[in-house]
């Protein structure tokens, strides 16, 4: 009897101990899985920011290519194909490089409100295409033109559609002169 009891005390692990050990292992694994999940989310965020900065630059380049005195081009419009195979942005129906517009607040948080100005805003889907404000867009692109002497400052900002999901803001400032 003495021998059996001793053996029990010294060599065995109770099921409770085993269960506790497994529980600890479980929690550790779950924590590790969470780290990986976080990394996946961060990667996705990083791609969204990259796309935001690309479409931000796209708008800045489009505005830079306008004539300094242009006040009519529809910069919110989509490309129109020319007969010779080239493309143009609509030259009427907008306000070109007229001073005006608003940009997104920075930082852009859930508490922020977005003031948009017609002709100084467009909506972009995940592939970079301009879509209607009622369409399935992913980014909102806002720009502001201000004039000082013979230099116009162009500021373009991009924010995600869902403030809760995408807080990123991309911003480009550039200048043109006559």
């Amino acid at each position, binding site marked *: 009897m003495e021998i059996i009891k001793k053996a029990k005390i010294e060599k065995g692990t109770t099921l409770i101990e085993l269960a506790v050990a497994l529980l600890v292992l479980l929690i550790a694994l779950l924590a590790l899985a969470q780290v990986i999940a976080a990394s996946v989310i961060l*990667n996705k965020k*990083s791609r969204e920011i990259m796309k935001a900065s690309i479409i931000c630059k796209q708008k800045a380049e*489009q505005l830079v*290519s306008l004539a300094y005195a242009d006040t009519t081009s529809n910069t919110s419009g989509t490309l129109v194909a020319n007969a010779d195979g*080239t*493309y143009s*942005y609509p030259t009427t129906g907008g306000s070109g490089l007229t001073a005006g517009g608003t940009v997104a607040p920075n930082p852009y948080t859930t508490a922020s409100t977005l003031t948009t100005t017609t002709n100084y805003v467009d909506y972009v889907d995940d*592939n970079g295409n301009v879509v209607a404000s009622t369409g399935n867009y992913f980014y909102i692109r806002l720009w502001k033109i201000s004039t000082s002497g013979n230099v116009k400052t162009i500021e373009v900002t991009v924010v995600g559609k869902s403030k809760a999901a995408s807080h990123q803001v991309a911003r480009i400032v550039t*200048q043109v*002169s006559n």
Partner: protein
Amino acid sequence: MKFLFKKLNEKIGFSLIELSIALIILLLVLTAVFSLFSRSVKVNKSELAVSDTDQQVKNALSLIATEVERAGSNPDPAIIPTSPAASITVSSVNAGAMTINLNNVSGINVGNTIKYASTNLVVTKVSRNSAYPAVANLAGTVTVTGTLPTVGAVITGKNYPHPGGIMYDLAGNGTASWSSNSTTLRIFGDLNQNGAFYYTEYKYDSTNLRITRASEMITGTVPSAGTATYKVPYTILDNVTACNFKYIKDSVGNVVSVLITLTVRPPNDQIVAANRPTYTYQITVTSRNAIAASSIKRSGELAASSIPSAIPSIEIRAVASY
């Protein structure tokens, strides 16, 4: 003795059935956790591949963007790039100004030097006679200091077509060959900012799903595609499932921008086929020299006072919060 054993069994032990059930439950839970874990690892691996692809796209786009922005820049002010003619005839000379055909002539700006015979003429003003360069043989006045050439004199230019350096048509004469150009981007100018003309060609290879770049220094005329002795094209981006270049004209009809649309996917060996997403990127790049060439035409003339003292700066900032 038997009693003792029984007591022991009842008080601190478990039956084999209890043990088995407990183990099966634990096993089930562990299996679930492990499958979740292994899925996480798999997704993470895919995401890393996607993220790597993103980075490669970014690098490739930034290379193309840098070169397109520099396209059309003239490293030698004594060279007047013309298209397609290689010479410019002076049509009238009056009070320090000479009238020449400015159509298809780019790269003349205030402060430049035009070389005529052995004399250097410094440009002080450039005026174009029409706001619209689409008018054939557009004349213009170039005010210069120095010994003026006589009427009928020929200023030698070189055949570097297209103001802005974006060759949207093959021959440089406005006759488009669009079927090939939508997947090929040809630009020229002082692309490396080292004082020499370079010609660069980006091509989409739809068979191998990649974009290649070939570049060479040019001294005379821009080579026709396919006939020049290019440097061996090298791949700048792999796993491109679609690529398209759109040439965008400004309001006066000059091609000034290129819209690049790329669809990429992560490498096959890094990701399970069913999970292999494609991503589309669009970027517009504007040739700074094309804008310069156009604004002269649009505003009529470019006075020295209106040239900005500093090159416009571009600030790109991506801000994120999590």
